[in-house]
């Protein structure tokens, strides 16, 4: 245990200042502040591409207790821009772990701060909404940090998906499979691909801006529209591609950002949420089966509920039991559906993995 802790400071766009101790990399970082209420699975969260550009508060009291493990990741690098915690722990006990959280964050150059009254900040964000923030363990000159913070662009209208999308096409699963799925990658989580491969699919992952003609050479039986960071509204290239895909009458499944894109491709607008949904405990009701599921969520944008309800060609399949927000839709007369939450989980409950079965069944029937 280091004897003297290095001071660090967190400044929010609205002038809130919180002092704490440095953790992970020493430096300065900026991004949009958000919070996640999950009590397990921090490493999966940190490597989830949808968190790109975010500075994350982990609400639970201790983070780092079980260290890090090489294969419990959702992408190859840490995607969050910074981490805020009450107690970030460098010492861990898990026997099958490969290292400590502190080292991991250092290696991945993630500037973090701990000893923060995270609960007070969460309540603040809950009432004031998402905003940008800056963490520094290099300087405690708050005025200088405020200047730097002022230059950070607003998340609203920010296209980030192409920044985390794969640069090259890659393939997973059994090449002989009779189910081929094309994945449009806007920041796909590893385990989404895994969930499809496990069910017997052969998947090919395409960079965000791949023209559909190129994708079609793969002769896919179905399309998967991935999750990802940022605002979906400025993603014209993706919306256009999806519109073309929908013409093909082949099964389409979208998750999170993919859900928002499916809405946009059907003329339904999206909006920036007040402070988003991020955690492992959000209740969703499946209106088709009547059964409910506990879901993993991570989204700062949502689908306009009024517009969905008015749209005759869209069926609402899932709603959030807490705030009645739209959690799942289906395009009437087309084999296309999507959910706002993360059925692949990791981290979180596996209640919703049936959706992958549904997707593959749809392909088989098609």
């Amino acid at each position: 245990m280091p004897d003297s802790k290095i001071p660090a400071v967190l400044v929010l766009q609205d002038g809130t200042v919180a002092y704490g101790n440095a953790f992970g990399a020493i430096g300065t970082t900026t991004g949009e502040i958000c919070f996640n209420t999950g009590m397990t699975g921090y490493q999966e969260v940190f490597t989830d591409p949808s968190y790109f550009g975010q500075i994350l508060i982990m609400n639970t009291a201790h983070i780092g207790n079980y260290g890090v493990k090489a294969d419990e990741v959702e992408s190859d690098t840490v995607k969050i821009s910074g981490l805020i915690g009450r107690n970030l722990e460098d010492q861990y006990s898990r026997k099958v772990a490969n290292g400590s959280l502190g080292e991991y964050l250092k290696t991945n150059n993630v500037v973090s701060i701990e000893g923060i009254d995270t609960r007070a900040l969460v309540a603040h964000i809950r009432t004031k909404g998402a905003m940008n923030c800056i963490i520094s363990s290099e300087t405690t000159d708050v005025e200088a940090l405020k200047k730097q913070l002022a230059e950070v662009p607003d998340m609203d209208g920010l296209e980030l998906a192409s920044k985390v999308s794969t640069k090259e096409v890659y393939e997973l699963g059994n090449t002989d499979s009779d189910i081929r799925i094309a994945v449009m990658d806007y920041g796909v989580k590893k385990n989404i691909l895994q969930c499809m491969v496990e069910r017997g699919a052969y998947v090919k992952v395409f960079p965000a801006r791949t023209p559909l003609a190129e994708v079609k050479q793969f002769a896919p039986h179905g399309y998967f529209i991935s999750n990802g960071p940022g605002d979906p509204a400025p993603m014209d290239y993706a919306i256009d591609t999806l519109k073309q895909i929908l013409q093909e009458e082949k099964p389409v499944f979208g998750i999170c950002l993919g859900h928002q894109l499916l809405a946009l491709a059907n003329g339904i607008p999206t909006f920036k949420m007040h402070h988003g949904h991020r955690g492992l405990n959000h209740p969703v009701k499946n209106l088709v089966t009547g059964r409910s599921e506990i879901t993993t969520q991570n989204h700062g944008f949502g689908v306009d509920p009024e517009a969905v309800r008015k749209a005759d060609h869209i069926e609402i399949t899932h709603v959030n039991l807490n705030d009645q927000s739209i959690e799942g839709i289906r395009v009437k007369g087309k084999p296309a559906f999507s959910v706002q939450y993360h059925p692949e989980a990791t981290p979180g409950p596996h209640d919703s993995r049936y959706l992958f079965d549904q997707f593959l069944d749809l392909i088989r029937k098609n």
Partner: protein
Amino acid sequence: MPKDSSIQSVLIIGSGPIVIGQACEFDYSGTQAARSLREEGIKVILINSNPATIMTDPMMADRVYLLPLTVESLEQILQENQIDAVLPTMGGQTALNLCKEAEDVGLWSQYNVRLIGVDIKAIDKAEDREKFRQWMIEMNIPVATAKTANSFLEGKEFAQEIGFPLVIRPSFTLGGTGGGFVHDKEDLDEALNRGLQASPIHEVLVEKAVLGWKEFELELLRDSADNVCIICTVENFDPMGVHTGDSITVAPAMTLSDTAMQLMRNTAIDMMRNLGNFSGGCNVQFALNPDTEEIIAIEINPRVSRSSALASKATGYPIAKIAAKLAIGYTLDELENQITKTTSAYFEPALDYVIVKVPRWNFDKFKGADDSLGLQMKSVGEVMAIGRSFTEAIQKACQSLENNAVGLGYYGKSLMHAEELLEYIKTPKWDRIFRIKDALMAGISVGSISKATNGIDRWFLYEIQKICNIEKKLAEYDLDTIPAGLLREAKVNGFSDEQISRILQHGNEEDVYNKRKELGITRVYKMVDTCSAEFEAKTPYFYSTFENVPEGAAGANSNESKASDRKKIIVLGSGPNRIGQGIEFDYCCVHGLLAIKESGYEAIMVNCNPETVSTDFDMADKLYFEPVYWEHLWEIIEHEKPEGVIVQLGGQTALKLAEKLHEKGIRIIGTSYDSMDIAEDRGRFSDLLKNLEIPYPDYGTAYDVDEAISVANKVGYPVLVRPSYVLGGQRMRIVINDEEVEKAVVSLLKHIPGNKILIDHFLDRCQEAEIDALFDGENFHVMGVMEHIEPAGIHSGDSNAVLPAFNLTPLIVHTMEEYAEKIARELNIKGLINIQFAIKDGKVFVIEANPRASRTTPFIAKAYQIPYLNVATKIMMGTHTLKDFKFEKKLKGFAIKEPVFSFNKFPGVNKELGPEMKSTGEAIRFIKDLRDPYFRQLYKDRSMYLSK
């Protein structure tokens, strides 16, 4: 699915008297269930034989039966009432067993009563060890290798097959009764016999022991539509091998990766969906191999439990309340979150704090008992502490225990050498956590400790090491030189002011307090809201912590407990249950809170016992789940600025804080501190009796053996030797000669050095009786006169007491009442007083007076059907006088208070009764007259257990 409208009336079965393994957590669940059903317009009929429970209060149910928990009682109830359904999942193992027994004799079908919540098949599958195993194997869920034996011979054969170490688990027993580890062949015969005998069906499971694996518990809810959610995941600090009721437990799970967590969650859900007809709360236990992360299922309990009570308090999610709604047909998705009131009840609580539960044991009461911990639960109560870190929570839990701990540490007492410590911690015992800390202070490595304790997770040990590191740094300073940052760090990690002063060896509690206040180091209060602040919650359930308060707008959120401008009264609870102080004070506190609310004040509760009804989030206007410990109380008082504090309702725990409150000028509601002190101080009390010309047994005080012998000879043998200020007759001895006096005094001074020793002449073979009464400063009211069946010498808590007196002459009763009134008047009691009498040769002696609610107050209230605690609280507050109430005692015949013991948990201990209380609970029994055969038997046996 909406509620089933064919259910109009429901019978709830309680859990009976408190025994080890089944305590007031079932009063909490029963009370919640009754309230929850009545909210739905359902008529609730309730049976329980325990008079000290809130659930048996007339306000809780439409009809209450204080009857023994037998099939005959059930039949009587079914004859007298139209009952549609019975809910057996709220009263622990006792209720499930009784329900099964009634099913076996066809009672339910005879009266056309439906079982709701669970069906018999599901109970069998879960509770019968062999059926459970077979079921798991069918489901492909790993379990420990085991075989079920129905005979001694079978057991021996299986043991040979499976190999040592192994576990013997009797079927259908409570709190692991009769179970145990067998490390080698020599111990097998005895363990096998004990197990077979403990099982009502003469059946044990011989199981491979998975020592060193980590233990986890999941609390779940399931509805009839097959929705399942996990309310709480609890991690045991002690690895497999210690009964979960005797383990230190932590929530949320601290060392579980998401991969391991989801494996458990999926397995638990599969188990619940496969269990059969079940809607309600359920508990599933797993063991996890830390090397491979494989898991095995240990057990499933298809009912609410001690763990679900803890989980409810830990998360804020009222499991029993929701479980009752699920039993009548509701599904989770149509119910609302009771805390936020805006979100769904179907969700999994997220915690942004840590809770630590530490059990409370009473080994001092069971001489000769094996004090090592194992499969069989031995603790009598528990405390829960909430903090923003594990270090803070574990230290607060220690401060809650009321065993004089000021935090995690011994501070100068009974030091051991490193090798001794390492050896000592190999056996789980009540003080192992303290010894682990000593070992870390002594420089023993985390690795060695983890190994010696057979697998306590290193993460917990690293955290305790943090406490040690801070302590070592603190020791380098004194109050004048200590850096502000270090003092803050200590407070953030749960150190109490008293603890810091002892480590600094400078100043006292108050000096440290003043120092930190100067530096602005002060508590903030956070809300338990089920959702980690994601949603706004209004439920006034708080705990304290220390935070680096942010600058700017967010800073205002740091302290979430906003003091209102209403007039408020604080009620102090009684802390962990233990022998001599238990559920009866929870009953008193609940009524106190309700009376305060009725009188227009804001009622604030302070307590740390998770099993209680008084710490339910909607009992008080505001709940502080905090140690009943001066430092914590004082900061609450500073924050809330109450009109006063009630100490009469929380037993000796609350009363003990009266002196400090008095010193600080805080108003004590009701009887003044000085009057309480007179009653508690033997010398001052005897002077008062002398002045009033009331006889009392001759007595003297002593500080050493010589003095004691001389006093004993002066007052005359036999004498009663005891320390001053004790609970439940702790360490009290009756002795008959100089030699025995010496032995008693030496033993006493060894345990409580420097204590003043009281020596009373003991009135041999006399009659004992007691009075509970009310005084408002002017008028006096006798609530009840109870006569003990056993002669003097047995602690009043262990005696069978009859209300009203059955054998005392009217003159004697009148004399007792007269003395009681004189004492109440002289002490200027405002509220409650309990006075104990001895009657010898027609002469009445006063033995002691307790200026507070007593163990028998709830019993009298129940027997006479008068809300005495409500009246008492209003008198204490001064909002009412006795004249405002009419008392109509409704008892026909007599009520007997019967003590109930838990000796079966301690094979080999001396079951003899004496001046030290040993019973864990009590039952009430009504008899028409003295010809009652039960009473006559009791009376005949009255001297059976008397100590020499």
